[in-house]
């Protein structure tokens, strides 16, 4: 990599289930202005823009074109990246590559979605094979339910173990003024909420949101001039694994396992549980909070329930997960992965306010797509060697 890269500013909207007061372009503009203000930069300082969402959710393609007034991309280089649920993390990785290449010093990265503008399940279905996948498929929840079912059967976990993760994230969301759902729930409330698809209850899953997020990345030549304590990007990884939904190893997230192994290797991390200080996991449902931290190597297979019941991932615990309340509290899909990245950056920069974890050296953020894709970023306080 020619240049080291750091995040020097972030901005996000106050996420809601429905934002009829703004159109897509105006929503994007809110996040962009906040990120510029956070970095104390003007639009003229930005060299290039990366933007993304999941087109099908609004039924409007080419956001890179129609949003230019709001995104600030008028007469600037802009590229759209869209990879489904992982989009928000993918745009960040794309921005990292642009800055790292040495061709652009300051890149603005935008993820956004107005999920209120169409039918989410119908739109997600268009991401799957029309001949082999669509007959029985029922949107993101059906695949996730099959994963949770397999994990429960393989390791003897329970619906209660999943509910504990949801209780954690919804409690954490109380500290985040940007979160959409800010209401604490009890274990019994999660388990008594309607069963959507066995074993997933309504309160185990994310909502759908309108929201946008923007992140500014800068090369090592200018980063510390913009921001005295930037968030350095140590490594990124991205994995996709299959063609049809039946190809996955249900009960394990292979893409997370392979991607995180690459991340730890690149950064020289031997024991992620001890070396990471905070995680912002793209975790759209509670059971993912069990399964996927095992695939990351935080704990061994089947060990996540015990680790989480012991409070290790709560605020104040050994390794807090989702101080922001995570995806279960807020899910504007094309922005969701980038919100994880921004929240992790804020933790490293000491800007996370009421949800700050003390003394963060390494933070992890990820993206996830319903097709069992995962991408991820390792953030650090120190400049990488």
């Amino acid at each position, binding site marked *: 990599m020619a240049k080291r890269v750091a995040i020097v500013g972030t901005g996000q909207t106050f996420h809601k289930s429905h934002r009829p007061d703004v159109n897509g372009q105006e929503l994007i503009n809110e996040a962009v202005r906040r990120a510029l203000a956070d970095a104390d930069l003007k639009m003229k300082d930005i060299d290039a823009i990366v933007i993304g969402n999941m087109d099908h959710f609004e039924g409007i393609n080419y956001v890179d074109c129609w949003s230019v007034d709001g995104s600030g991309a008028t007469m600037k280089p802009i590229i759209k990246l869209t990879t489904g649920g992982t989009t928000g993390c993918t745009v960040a990785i794309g921005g990292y590559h642009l800055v790292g290449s040495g061709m652009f010093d300051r890149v603005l990265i935008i993820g956004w979605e107005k999920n209120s503008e169409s039918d989410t399940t119908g739109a997600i*279905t268009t991401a799957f094979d029309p001949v082999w996948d669509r007959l029985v498929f029922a949107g993101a929840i059906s695949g996730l339910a099959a994963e949770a079912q*397999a994990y429960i059967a393989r390791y003897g976990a329970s619906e209660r173990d999943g509910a504990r993760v949801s209780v954690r994230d919804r409690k954490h969301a109380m500290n985040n003024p940007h979160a959409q759902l800010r209401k604490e729930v009890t274990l019994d409330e999660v388990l008594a909420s309607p069963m959507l698809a066995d074993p997933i209850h309504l309160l185990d899953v994310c909502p759908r949101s309108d929201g946008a997020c923007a992140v500014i990345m800068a090369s090592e030549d200018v980063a510390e001039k913009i921001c005295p304590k930037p968030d350095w990007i140590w490594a990124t990884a991205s994995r996709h694994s299959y063609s049809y939904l039946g*190809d996955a190893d249900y009960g394990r997230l292979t893409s997370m396992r392979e991607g995180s192994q690459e991340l730890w290797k690149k950064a020289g991390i031997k024991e992620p549980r001890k070396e990471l200080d905070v995680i912002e996991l793209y975790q759209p449902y509670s059971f993912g909070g069990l399964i996927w931290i095992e695939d990351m190597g935080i704990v061994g297979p089947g060990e996540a329930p015990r680790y989480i019941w012991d409070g290790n991932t709560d605020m104040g615990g050994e390794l807090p997960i989702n101080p922001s309340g995570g995806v279960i509290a807020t899910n504007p899909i094309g922005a969701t992965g980038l919100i994880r990245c921004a929240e992790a950056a804020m933790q490293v920069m000491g800007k996370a306010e009421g949800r700050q974890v003390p003394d963060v050296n390494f933070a992890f953020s990820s993206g996830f797509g319903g097709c069992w894709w995962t991408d991820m970023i390792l953030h650090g306080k120190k400049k990488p060697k």
Partner: protein
Amino acid sequence: MTQTENIIIESGDAVQPFSYSVGMHGSKFFTELRDNRRFMAVKCPKCKKVYIPPRGVCGECFVEMKDWVEVGPQGVIGTFTILRFAFIDPETGAQKPVPYGYGFIKFDGADTLFQHYISVEDETKIKIGARVEPVFSKDRKGTIRDIEYFKVID
């Protein structure tokens, strides 16, 4: 300002002209299913993994696959869920009848899972590892609906 009327993109009685190829492997699969009620899978010459749905390339080895093997028709439930929330089926525009069993079937002899309905007549029987067999449609047309559903036979 809230827009009170939704914008609906529709074309009267016209049908959207989506026309998907199933490819050479898909054609053999659906022809065998329709004419002989057989499930044809394809085996990787390198890693020996047996794929269903059949396809031209093993992604892990990145080699062409030509060796056909018959799998099933019985198998076990690899994983499953029971869908209980109502939603609009984008394929038909109508509400999908719930509850329904969503099965990932591991055919005897196959290494990947095949998605289809599982009968939920007796929910207590639907478990990972339960043996299942297909119920075929009487009027088969060479589509995935040539199987009506799978049922637990334990």
